[in-house]
């Protein structure tokens, strides 16, 4: 489980060779220190709801309405991608998976669409045709299991198709049941990652070529591998340097990378809450705010991120850029004119608009607020934990918040109220970390609309971020851009997202290395993704994860 200097160099330089313009493969690497990687364990990864839907759409047709109410994703250590390595399937969850599979199978094989997915015509519409059923099962099954079916697996489905076709006197109804058995199988619901000894160094366990295909595809496109990737996988290409590099370049240069980037940031920022209608606001206090506005606010931020990163701009500039996208509905909330009557338009906020960088977006400010008021603490906690990867401890059990609540008393602004915390030792430790950040964002109310006063008192947005002083939210954005932890935090988050688990001690050196490479690339996320997938952290493992001890409770 070591990565030799030689292997590492070769991998990176092949990547550089294939993509013209990649910096860092000019020979200076020869002096890089060896990166020792002791990669962590692999585990089954339950498809997230999004992956479930995309895998079905890509295999069986975009026309399918995939039921959204399946077993909820498990968010762990701030990522669904990590929770997926722990999630199981509960009885009610399986019941929903089966119902969803049934609804999907019916749509996939309806009269209008069956010819798109069934590669043959049955001899009879009213009885079984094992040959044609097998052709369908093997073709759809390969995309859904992300590998070719074994004979046993295919035989079982062909038998189901025959039994059902003959019972129901309907060939395609038989295929529906066969398809349901694929869609409810653990081989579909869980991504199975398999390791094997590396023939060139049997002490090192590498992911098999077929496992690499799923890893790459779900990381970069967040869906099941396409035919080209499956072919490369089954040909053994993805355990060779050239074969891997070739596929990685193809995946990274495809428009589908936008989906991958969108999914990563949506997970990291917990934007699924918008889709589930969980970012609620009080109607009386915020009449402008509707579920549609909330979803568009989320979309605005994701569009901004995707456009910025796929244009290979500096990741850090996301926190200062005035460039974004708006709809007319969002324009109302931002109080700016939007020309396009329906749909989206690129929009650059004016210099005096006070809308520089992601932290000025409605999405963040609404998400990290309460239903009736803004929260400097939640916003500050988000910046510390998610953008800078710094831990904020949980509050002590015995707390008196009276002073923070009394909005009509002597303390009129959030700053005045929160400063009262900081005089209390039990609170100060955390609040001195979160509050100065959040107070800079107090110019945005609980739905992210601009304001200058709270309860008739002007809002003071000045503060400092670990020594960098600022006057307002835009200044905070600049301080964040220049914060030394910003880039490394994205590296860590992306790595955790890719591996589906926390970083192991044996991977620290790799992370340091990735930090350097990310900085050298001027914080281009596409480059970072390439470095991650070509690294031994992504390609090797210590083996299957062991069960956790039951603790001292039993």
């Amino acid at each position, binding site marked *: 489980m070591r990565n030799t200097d030689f292997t590492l160099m070769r991998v990176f330089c092949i990547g550089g060779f294939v993509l013209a313009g990649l910096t860092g493969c000019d020979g200076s690497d020869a002096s890089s220190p060896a990166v020792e990687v002791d990669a962590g*364990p692999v*585990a*089954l990864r339950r498809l997230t709801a999004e992956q479930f839907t995309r895998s079905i759409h890509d295999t069986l047709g975009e026309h399918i309405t995939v039921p959204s109410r399946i077993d*909820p994703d498990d*968010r762990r250590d701030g990522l669904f991608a990590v929770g997926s390595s*722990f*999630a*199981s*399937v*509960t*009885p*009610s*969850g*399986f*019941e929903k998976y089966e119902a969803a599979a049934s609804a999907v199978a019916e749509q996939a094989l309806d009269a209008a669409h069956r010819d798109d997915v069934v590669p043959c015509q049955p001899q009879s519409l009213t009885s079984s045709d094992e040959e044609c059923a097998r052709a369908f099962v093997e073709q759809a099954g390969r995309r859904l299991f992300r590998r070719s079916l074994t004979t046993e697996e295919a035989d*079982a*489905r062909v*038998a*189901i198709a025959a*039994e*059902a076709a003959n*019972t*129901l006197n309907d060939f395609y109804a038989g295929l529906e*049941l066969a398809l*349901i*058995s694929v869609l*409810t*199988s*653990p*081989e579909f619901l*869980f991504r*199975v990652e398999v390791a094997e000894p590396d023939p060139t160094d049997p002490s090192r366990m590498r992911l098999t070529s077929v496992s690499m295909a799923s890893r790459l595809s779900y990381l970069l496109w967040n869906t099941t591998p396409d035919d080209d990737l499956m072919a490369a996988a089954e040909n053994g290409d993805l355990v060779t340097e050239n074969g891997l590099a070739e596929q990685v370049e193809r995946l990274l240069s495809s428009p589908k990378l936008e989906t991958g980037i969108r999914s990563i940031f949506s997970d990291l920022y917990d934007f699924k809450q918008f889709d*589930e*209608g*969980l970012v*609620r606001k*009080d*109607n*009386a206090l915020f009449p402008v705010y509707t579920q549609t506005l909330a979803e568009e606010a989320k979309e605005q931020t994701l569009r901004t991120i995707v456009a910025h990163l796929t244009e290979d701009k500096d990741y850090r500039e996301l926190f200062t850029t005035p460039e974004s996208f708006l709809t007319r509905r969002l324009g109302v909330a931002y109080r700016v004119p939007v020309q396009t009557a329906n749909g989206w338009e690129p929009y650059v906020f004016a210099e005096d608009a006070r809308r520089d960088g992601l932290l000025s977006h409605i999405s963040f400010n609404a998400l990290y607020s*309460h*239903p*009736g*008021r803004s929260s400097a603490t939640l916003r500050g906690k988000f910046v510390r934990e998610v953008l800078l990867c710094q831990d904020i401890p*949980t*509050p002590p*059990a015995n707390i*008196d*918040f*009276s002073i923070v*609540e*009394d*909005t009509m008393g002597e303390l009129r602004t959030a700053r005045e109220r929160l400063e009262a915390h900081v005089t209390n030792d039990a609170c100060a430790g955390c609040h001195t970390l979160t509050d100065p950040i959040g107070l800079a964002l107090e110019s945005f109310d609980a739905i992210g609309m601009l304001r200058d006063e709270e309860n008739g008192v002007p809002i003071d947005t000045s503060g400092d971020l670990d020594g960098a002083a600022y006057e307002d939210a835009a200044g905070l954005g600049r301080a964040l851009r220049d914060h030394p932890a910003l880039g490394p935090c994205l590296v860590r988050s992306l790595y955790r997202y890719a591996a589906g688990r926390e970083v192991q001690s044996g991977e620290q050196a790799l992370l340091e290395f990735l930090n350097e490479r990310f900085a050298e690339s001027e914080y281009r996320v596409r480059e970072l993704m390439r470095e991650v997938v070509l690294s031994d952290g992504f390609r090797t493992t210590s*083996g*299957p*994860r*062991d*069960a*956790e001890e039951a*603790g001292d*409770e039993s």
Partner: protein
Amino acid sequence: MKRFDRRTLLRGTLAGGAVSMGLPFLDCFVNDNGTALAQGAPLPVRFGAWMWGCGMNPDRWNPTTEGLGYELPIELQALDRELPTGAKLREHVSILSDFDVKLDGRPNFPHTAGLMGTLTGSLPLQDYTVPAPTLDTIIAAQIGGQTRFRSLEMSCTGNPNQSYSFERQGVFNAPEISPMALYTRVFGPEFADPNAGPFTPDPRLMLRQSVLSAVKADRDRLHQRVGTHDQQRLDQYFTSVRQLEQQIDILLAGPPDLESCSKAPTPGAESLGTEVGQSMSTNRLMADLISFALACDQTRVFSMMFSDRISGLRQPGSSSLHHQLTHDEAIDSALGYQPEATEFVFVSMEAWADFVERLAAIPEGDGTLLDNCLVFGHSDISFAKIHGITGIPMMIAGSAGGALKPGVHVKGNTSPTTRVGLTIQRAMGLNTESFGTRSMEATQPVSEIVA
């Protein structure tokens, strides 16, 4: 065993080509009257958990007198309702005060320690973790296999990602948040309506069983290829597949044969969210549906989260949530409590009364459905302002089919809340010797409420 026989017979018939059959064929499996299940089994006893967040004011919620006919304190006035039977609701509800969650030096993770201590008998070592299975899943593991649904989970918070029904860490039973979705799940096309004429099993049900057999074979093969962490997860997956097989077996067996069973009416308009009016309305609609589901023996275990332990209940137009108020609002020196936060205690107790009252509205046997239920009402905390975990408020509604004496106030004298959990398990027919760990280990049930 009974189910297995029935399924085998049906399967044989199907293989022979006949796919429809009438009730007479199944007569040997049911008895002649509607008061008992097949083979003379008594009416089922059901368990439910009903949870509200952020506790109460101990001085105003705990009754001052003990035993039967306790004096009703101000914050429990909702129990003073009169039922159609003429009895008061309070006569069906026991109050358990002065039972504690004991930390043994572990951290009092706000709102988590008290909840987990009471429901699992153990204290978490880390925040947001579940140290052991919750009471409802312990009971469902014993009795859930006899019904179509092993258990049903509900929530009035509008959040589909949160319930307090855990098999273990990471394995939680997601709640139904929409009354209409719950209705469709239980009383949708699959429901065999006893009042809908002759029963014809859907041939697809048998075919679904074949699908599940194939899926189990996949699971068995995969189980051999993965590590111990994943084996545990696949064991859970297997249990879940088995549960669906059970569900299909029961659907094949035809309509429930219970006198009180009828199909629930379609629920009224719903509005999901945590404004008080929304949560109260969802609670009533869900209570209605679960009462029909219980009367038709579709499940024997349920849980309801009326409000999150960090209660997000709020009044329209207010900038503060219930949980925030419990911490932020000053104690009114004249009143001696937090007036705004306390409004939510009243709301929660009204909702609890609404829920229990609904179960008492369905006649069953010589009494009502509530008599054959044991509904455990509890919060995560006592006095929320300080995250108090002594004197966790707990209530038990119903008589558990005669196993419990209702309408009693018992003071626990600081004994662990797990004594109540132990009492509940035994009343539900489990042979539980002890419940909980360390100082939370309970071996003595609350004898004052045992019949």
